[in-house]
Structures are given as structure tokens and as C-alpha cells.
């Protein structure tokens, strides 16, 4: 029987009420007295030198209040990269300045070089059109293809970076020679060249920001679509505008999805703040969808050659990869960590492979910045591994299930140190594979295939066994790896005098359901009704600190901080109870919301203790402060390692190349589960995005650097009819060994494990139909499948 209260209960979400009745408050829903509107002028060419911007006519247009260009921000700071990566030769990465507004050059279509502020949106938009007409930009040849960018030193995205290379990273460089030796003597080597397609995150709420300045106090307020309000405050205050951190409040109200794209600070946020100060009025901006396509940080975009060395029985001996990773025109905040430490460190998968070497060259191009998108580096690693393993199985005529099984790290091997620098604390990869085979009814596949064949369809079965490192992240470890921030999180538990509770958490919820799930945990720990607990998030003026929500870290890092703060509340409550009950503190136990003296019926309820803390008439004031509020920061000592096995069945229409996903089965190990309904929802969403990547979505820049897929008319978002009902199982649970909740994180799993399962299924279907195709790049569109069939 599922629980109906607290930890583990499939509690319906309290936040749904406001979203379902139209009472959510997203940034663009706010109306502020005296507000003005910003519209940005964005480059229409991928690469060009700004010759002149004549603001005269624009400034005189109706309603125009101010015009800003890159010149206005040339003396303030740039938006920095959060991770310093070093090249194989020890040199630090190249870090060009990322200005608030482009200055000197524009470097991608959509690069903002000016902004107009006006009384109304239409006036601002009209004026921005005028300004664009009065701007002269000399177009330069666009740098779009990564290989060409590195090969041609004459054409540079940043004039000071000769080969367009940000860094050339080896992981682990000391293993390079050893891995080469393995490949020289290996009985079999499988090689696969593949593309991990560039994706646009496409949170349904476009980015939006409102800047306010209060001259009476000198305070600023930024309301913005952020997954990460504290980091945004830090970046805007300390790095870009030089505002004292304590004079800036950042609020992220209801946020309509993020998927990575709203982790980062963007120039528009700095602009609305600077403009608000100059005008003394609120300044607002909301992206149009095409603006989002052009200027949100994109995801993925790797070109990889992966090699697998093994014996003839399919025992893995080594993996080796060479990857070109696109960072676009500027370094977004996490862009240098994504293709390196979120990718290379996962390149051993759940396998006991003895030798791995990863090389990543990260390249500047005249395209939008690329950064972490749901999964961030780990989907790229998983896709490369799971595709090359499938190819090897076909080459050696081995069963892909058995090959994975025999290479799995086994349960007796934990903690397991991989050759790429991680220590997996626990897992059971055999169990999730067995569960997927059972739940996905692999036994019945042949009958389903025969039925499909009767209808002229080719049916295929694809498998992917994945692992990720999340709960990002242990600061001591990421510090060594180049992170410029700590990745702990924080929470304050405030017990109010009437006994109800406000919990201020650093994690931000933009769909994950923290308001419900975090309250379940606190209520469970304190033995009080969930309705007594309120979760407060997304406001730097209310919350102690936080590093935001991404990397499946909300529960595994912030949730743990919250439980540690609860533990402190209980500890203080015991002291108060001991005094009130005239007992020794050591004799006080706390259970089901009651502090009791062991072996007696003397007890005080949680509410009585809370009241006493605020009305301390009978209270140990000489040794204990009144009040009942505790804060905890939690820095994990390892990543968490969710893992699982995914099965996909597809039907391919050999006449049209159309692929239909018939079923998708997930067997995951997320450790302990706090709310199964929410976990299922997270997996569904991830799988939906993974199927989107595998079959539909592609971000296409043409040779001139024009984004051809810049709207929903051109970019194929998965729709309801593109996906099936999914089967999600999370019954295999090996609790995380190093956090007290035993949780691992489930937000990214679906997006990590699903793309290779889909593509493996398509290749399997084609082979079963006698069509010997070894690989099709994503998206596996009807055109690509049809061409592959014709060329086979």
C-alpha cells in the first residue's frame, strides 16, 4: 500500500491549484506602476563588425525614453564562465569577454547590440526597428562548422583567439598512452562517428526580466525567469554591474520550465537593471519565441568519434573518444563544464571497463552559446557509449543484453573507482536490466514484431543502460576540477510561534513540485500535518543562500540541507522539552510530533515547544536562546549515481522512413523515493525530451550562420501524437550511501537514457528487415531513415 502522508506518499501537488486556475504569477504577469518596455536590437548576421549605430532618429521617436548600445557597457564587467578548464598542455582555456551588449563585433544571429526603452511595448518595438535601420554592420564570413573553425586561423569569432579553440582537454591525460596500448593489441575495435544534435531547450515560458531601482535606498530588484536566483545575483552584482550584493534582490517567481536554459545569467537582466537606474522607472522585457531561439543557451552539439576495444566475446577493454564540442559565440556560465566534467567523467558508463580516454576540443562558432540542457554532458556520454556498444554487438554477432550484463560493475564491487575519476557509491545494474526485461515484456517482442510485419512495418527493440553523476556537487571535488563556485545548498526552517513552519530553500522549483515534496519531508520528520509547512523559494531577500536547481540536485543537495536544519530544530526542541518536563535532555525522545521523557507518559507536543520558544516564560534562557529557527548548509561529499535500463520499441515504415515509438520502458534506480507521482512525471518529461532529440528536434544553422529552425514552425517540438504512454518502474532502489535521505535524483534520467534506446531500436528494426545500416544521426527523421534505406 502506498503511504498517504509524508515521505513516499504520491501526494497531489499543492501548487497545481494556482496553475490550474490561472493564478500562477510568472514574470510577464506582473504589472508594476510606471513600467517601461525594453526591446533589443539583435544582429541579423552571424558575424560582423559594428561600424556605426546612429541613435538620433530613434531617440526622437514617440515614447522613447532611452537608447543603449554596447558603448554604454564597455567599461563594466563581462558575464563570466563558471568553470576554468585547462588544456592538455596545461594552458588555461581562452575566455573572451561576454559583454552586456555586443561591442565592436556581433558574433551570432540574435546577438543583442542595442536596446531601446519606451513607454509602451509597441513604441519600443517600432523604435528598435528604426535603430536597426540606422545601424551599419559590415558582414564577415560566418564560422559555423566546428572542424572548419579550428582549421582556418584567418577567420576568428574573437579576434584574439587565433584558432577558435577554447581548450583542448584530455581526460585523463595520464591514461592516454595506456589506452593507446590497449587499442593496439585489442582483438576487436569498433569505431563510430556520430553527431549529438544541437537542441533548443524551449521552456514554454520565454525568458523575461523586470528591473527596478529604488533611489531612496539605492536598492535594485530584478524579477527574472531563473532556475538560480542567487547565482544570478552574484554574477550581476559582483561581476557585471558592480552593485553591492546586499543592494540587489533577485526574485524568480513562478517560472515556466527551464531545462538548463534558465540557470544562466543573460545580458538582458543586466540591461533592465541599468536602464531602471538611469530612468528611475521599472523596465521590463519579455522574449518573443524567436528571440528565445536566437539567444537562449542551446544544448548538446557534439561531433564525436568513439572507439570501443574488446575481446571477441564482447568484454570491454577500453573506450576512447575524440569530440568537437560547440560553445557558440560566447562562454555561457556552465558551458565549459558541460562537455568536460559532466561528460568525460561519465565515459565509463555502468561498466567495469579498465581503460578510458576522452579528448574534447571546444570550439567557438558564430552561433548562440551552448550550455547545459537537461542531462548536460551525460546524455552525450551515454549516447556515444550505448550506440558504439550496440554497433559492436552487431559486428561480433553478440546479444546486446548479455554484453551489457557481463560488463556491468557488480554489486560486490562498490564503492567502485572508475578510470575517469568518479567513485560510484552504490548501484545494482543487473537488477534494473532484469526489471526492464520483465516490465518491457522482452519475451513477447517476437510476437509483436511478427504482428507489425503483417502490417508491413519493421519493428525493432533498442536497449540503453545508463548511469549519471548528479546531485551536483561536492565543492571540494568540483573545485579541483575548475569550478569557480561551491555547489552546496542551504535551507532555513523557521518554526513560527503558532507552530506552523516556513522553510526557505535555495533550490528553485519551476515544475519539479518542491512546494509539495519538500513539505512532505519536513512534515514527516516533525510529525506534523503537511499543510502546516510552507516552502518559500526564489527570492534572495528571503532565503539564506542557494545554488539553484539543475543537475538533479534539488532534493539530493538542498533537500538534505533542509533535513539537517530540521534535525537542528529537533535538537533544540529536546533542550526546551527537557527544561519544561524537568528531565535530562538525554532522556527526551522525539517521535510523531511529540517530545517525551523515556519510560514515562510525560510529553510536550511540537506546538507546545514552539510556543514556549517564542513565549519563553518557562524556558532555560540562561543557556538557550528563545526562538525556533535553524539554517543548514549542506555540501555533499560525492555525486549521486542514479542508473537504469531503458527499452524502446519502434515501428519503422520502410516506404516512408517514418518511425513510431510503440512503447518505452524505464527501469530506474533513484534510491529512495519521496513522492512517486512526481518521480514518474520527471521521468516522463525526460523521456519525452529524449524522444524529441532522437526523432524530431534539430537546430540547423545554414552556412551563413542563419538559424533556419528559429520558430515552432521550423523546429520540430515533440507533440502528443509523437510519443506513447511510457512505462516507468523505480522499484530497484539502492539508496545513496552518503546522504541521509538516501536519494539520488531523477530529473535528468529520462533525457539521458532515452535517445540511444530510440536510435538502437531504429537500427535494430532496419536490420531485422534486412537493411544493413550501421548508424543514422539524430534526429532520425523520416528523410534520414528513408535515405539510409535507399542507400543500404
Amino acid at each position, binding site marked *: 500500500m502506498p503511504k498517504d502522508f509524508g515521505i513516499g506518499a504520491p501526494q497531489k501537488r499543492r501548487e497545481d491549484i494556482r496553475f490550474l*486556475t490561472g*493564478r500562477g504569477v510568472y514574470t510577464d504577469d506582473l504589472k508594476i506602476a510606471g513600467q517601461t518596455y525594453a526591446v533589443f536590437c539583435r544582429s541579423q548576421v552571424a558575424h560582423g563588425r559594428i561600424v556605426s549605430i546612429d541613435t538620433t532618429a530613434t531617440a526622437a521617436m514617440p515614447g522613447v525614453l532611452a537608447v543603449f548600445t554596447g558603448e554604454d557597457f564597455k567599461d563594466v564587467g563581462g558575464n563570466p564562465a563558471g568553470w576554468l578548464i585547462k588544456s592538455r598542455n596545461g594552458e588555461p582555456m581562452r575566455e573572451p569577454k561576454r559583454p552586456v551588449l555586443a561591442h565592436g563585433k556581433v558574433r551570432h544571429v540574435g546577438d543583442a547590440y542595442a536596446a531601446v526603452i519606451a513607454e509602451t511595448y509597441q513604441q519600443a518595438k517600432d523604435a528598435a526597428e528604426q535603430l536597426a535601420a540606422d545601424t551599419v554592420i559590415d558582414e564577415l564570413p560566418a564560422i559555423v562548422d566546428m572542424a572548419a573553425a579550428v582549421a582556418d586561423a584567418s577567420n576568428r569569432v574573437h579576434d584574439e583567439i587565433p584558432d577558435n579553440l577554447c581548450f583542448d582537454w584530455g581526460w585523463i591525460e595520464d591514461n592516454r598512452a595506456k589506452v593507446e596500448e590497449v587499442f593496439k593489441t585489442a582483438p576487436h575495435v569498433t569505431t563510430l562517428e556520430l553527431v549529438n544534435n544541437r537542441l533548443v531547450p*524551449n521552456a514554454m515560458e520565454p525568458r523575461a526580466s523586470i528591473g527596478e531601482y529604488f533611489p531612496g535606498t539605492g536598492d535594485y530588484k530584478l524579477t527574472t525567469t531563473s532556475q538560480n536566483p542567487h547565482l544570478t545575483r552574484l554574477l550581476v552584482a559582483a561581476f557585471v554591474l558592480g552593485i553591492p550584493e546586499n543592494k540587489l534582490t533577485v526574485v524568480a517567481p513562478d517560472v515556466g520550465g527551464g531545462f538548463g536554459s534558465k540557470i544562466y545569467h543573460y545580458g538582458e537582466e543586466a540591461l533592465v537593471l541599468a536602464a531602471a537606474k538611469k530612468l528611475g522607472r521599472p523596465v521590463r522585457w519579455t522574449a518573443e519565441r524567436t528571440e528565445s531561439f536566437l539567444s537562449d543557451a542551446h544544448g548538446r552539439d557534439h561531433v564525436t568519434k568513439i572507439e570501443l576495444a574488446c575481446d571477441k566475446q564482447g568484454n570491454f577493454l577500453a573506450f576512447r573518444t575524440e569530440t568537437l564540442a560547440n560553445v557558440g559565440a560566447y562562454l555561457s556560465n556552465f558551458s565549459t563544464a558541460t562537455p568536460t566534467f559532466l561528460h568525460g567523467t561519465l565515459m565509463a558508463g555502468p561498466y567495469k571497463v579498465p581503460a578510458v580516454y576522452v579528448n574534447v576540443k571546444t570550439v567557438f562558432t558564430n552561433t548562440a552559446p551552448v550550455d547545459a540542457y537537461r542531462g548536460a554532458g551525460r546524455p552525450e556520454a551515454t549516447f556515444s557509449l550505448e550506440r558504439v556498444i550496440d554497433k559492436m554487438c552487431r559486428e561480433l554477432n553478440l546479444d546486446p543484453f548479455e554484453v551489457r550484463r557481463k560488463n556491468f560493475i557488480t554489486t560486490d564491487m562498490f564503492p567502485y573507482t572508475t578510470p575517469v575519476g568518479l567513485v560510484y557509491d552504490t548501484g545494482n545494474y543487473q537488477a534494473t536490466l532484469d526489471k526492464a526485461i520483465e516490465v518491457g515484456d522482452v519475451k513477447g517482442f517476437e510476437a509483436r514484431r511478427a504482428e507489425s510485419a503483417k502490417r508491413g512495418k519493421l519493428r525493432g527493440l533498442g536497449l540503453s543502460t545508463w548511469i549519471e553523476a548528479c546531485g551536483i556537487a561536492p565543492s571540494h571535488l568540483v573545485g579541483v576540477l575548475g569550478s569557480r563556485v561551491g555547489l552546496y545548498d542551504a535551507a532555513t526552517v523557521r518554526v513560527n510561534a503558532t507552530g506552523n513552519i516556513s522553510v526557505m530553500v535555495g533550490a528553485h522549483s519551476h515544475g519539479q513540485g518542491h512546494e509539495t515534496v519538500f513539505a512532505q519531508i519536513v512534515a514527516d520528520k516533525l510529525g506534523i500535518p503537511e499543510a502546516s509547512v510552507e516552502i518559500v523559494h526564489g527570492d534572495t531577500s528571503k532565503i539564506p543562500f542557494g545554488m539553484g536547481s539543475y543537475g538533479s540536485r534539488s532534493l539530493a543537495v538542498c533537500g538534505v540541507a533542509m533535513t539537517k536544519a530540521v534535525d537542528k530544530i529537533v535538537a533544540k526542541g529536546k533542550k526546551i522539552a527537557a527544561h519544561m518536563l524537568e528531565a535530562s535532555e538525554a532522556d527526551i525522545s522525539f517521535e510523531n510530533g511529540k517530545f517525551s521523557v523515556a519510560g514515562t507518559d510525560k510529553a510536550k507536543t511540537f506546538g507546545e515547544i514552539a510556543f514556549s520558544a517564542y513565549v519563553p516564560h518557562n524556558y532555560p534562557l540562561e543557556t538557550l536562546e528563545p526562538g525556533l529557527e535553524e539554517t543548514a548548509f549542506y555540501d555533499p561529499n560525492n555525486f549521486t549515481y542514479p542508473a537504469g535500463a531503458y527499452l524502446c520499441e519502434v515501428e519503422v515504415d520502410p516506404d516512408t522512413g517514418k518511425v513510431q515509438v510503440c512503447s518505452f520502458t524505464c527501469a530506474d534506480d533513484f534510491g529512495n523515493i519521496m513522492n512517486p507521482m512526481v518521480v514518474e512525471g520527471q521521468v516522463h518529461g525526460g523521456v519525452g525530451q529524449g524522444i524529441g532529440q532522437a526523432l524530431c528536434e534539430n537546430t540547423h544553422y545554414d552556412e551563413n550562420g542563419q538559424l533556419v529552425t528559429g520558430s515552432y514552425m521550423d523546429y520540430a517540438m515533440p507533440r502528443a501524437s509523437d510519443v506513447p504512454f511510457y512505462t516507468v518502474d523505480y522499484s530497484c532502489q539502492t539508496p545513496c550511501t552518503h546522504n541521509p535521505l538516501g536519494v539520488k535524483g531523477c530529473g535528468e534520467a529520462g533525457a539521458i537514457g532515452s535517445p540511444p534506446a530510440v536510435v538502437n531500436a531504429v537500427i535494430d528494426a532496419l536490420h531485422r528487415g534486412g537493411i544493413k545500416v550501421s548508424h543514422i544521426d539524430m534526429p532520425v527523421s523520416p528523410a534520414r531513415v528513408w535515405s539510409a534505406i535507399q542507400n543500404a
Partner: protein
Amino acid sequence: MPKVTMRVNGRAVSGEVEGRTLLVQFLREGQGLTGTHVGCDTSQCGACTVHVNGAQVKSCTVFALDVDGAEVTTIEGMANPDGTLGRIQQAFQDHHGLQCGFCTPGMVMAAAALLAENPKPTEAEVRHHLEGNICRCTGYHNIVKAVLAASGQDVSAIAAE
């Protein structure tokens, strides 16, 4: 400026608009009904879906003046008279058919139009009907399930429950 008059969620409203003012702008900015969202500029995402004289309409695609005199229903008009969640809204909550909530108003309005026309749709019919509404969070699983449940059909056999 021309004046437009309509009934929104049963209430007579009017306001001055420009010729180019979209219905969604009139609702959000003129009437403060910010439950109707704008997620794209090309009538693709469906977050702005409302009902005009009972028909499902993307409010970013019609001018406010074009619906002069019409009966408009938005997400704010979908709850029961006592303020509790309506049948479709309740099914969305019961089956976790929403996450970030941004596409949700459009999904509910689209589902309501479907069920008015086809009270017992099949799974395929639900998926087909939601073709014009994009969700990035849920992978559609629980949205489709919620719509089927709202139609009174038994969804207990649907996977992952």
C-alpha cells in the same frame, strides 16, 4: 481608439483597443486575466488557448476587435461556481498532468473543447486533438491520461500508475 465589448467568463467587459491589439493582449493587459499565456509568436504552442463562443481559439491569432460581442471563456472561468477545481482541472491535478504550469491553461481549454465535442475520446483522439498544444515538461503522458480520466474513462490500466 475603437471600443470593444465582450463577455469574459460571464462578465460584460469593454475597453479601448488599437486595431492591432490581439485578444490575448486584451485579456492579459486590459482585463488582468494573466492565466492565458503567450508561449510563441506563431500560433503553434497553444498556451494562449481560450474559447470564443464555445469554440477553441488561439487568442494570439485573433484581434480583440474581431471578437466584439462574443462570449469568451478563459482558464479563470473554468473552476466550479464555488471556486473548487472543475472536472478537467481536477483530473489534471489528480493525474499530475502539469509541472511548470505554463502550458496548462491552454491544455485545459483544449481538453474542454475536445470533451464538449467528443465526450469519450480514444487515446489517439486525445493526442490528435492536442496537436496544437506543446508541453515541454510532462512528455504528455499524464496530460493524455488526465483528459481520458476527465471523460469518465477508467485510466487505471495505463502504465506507470
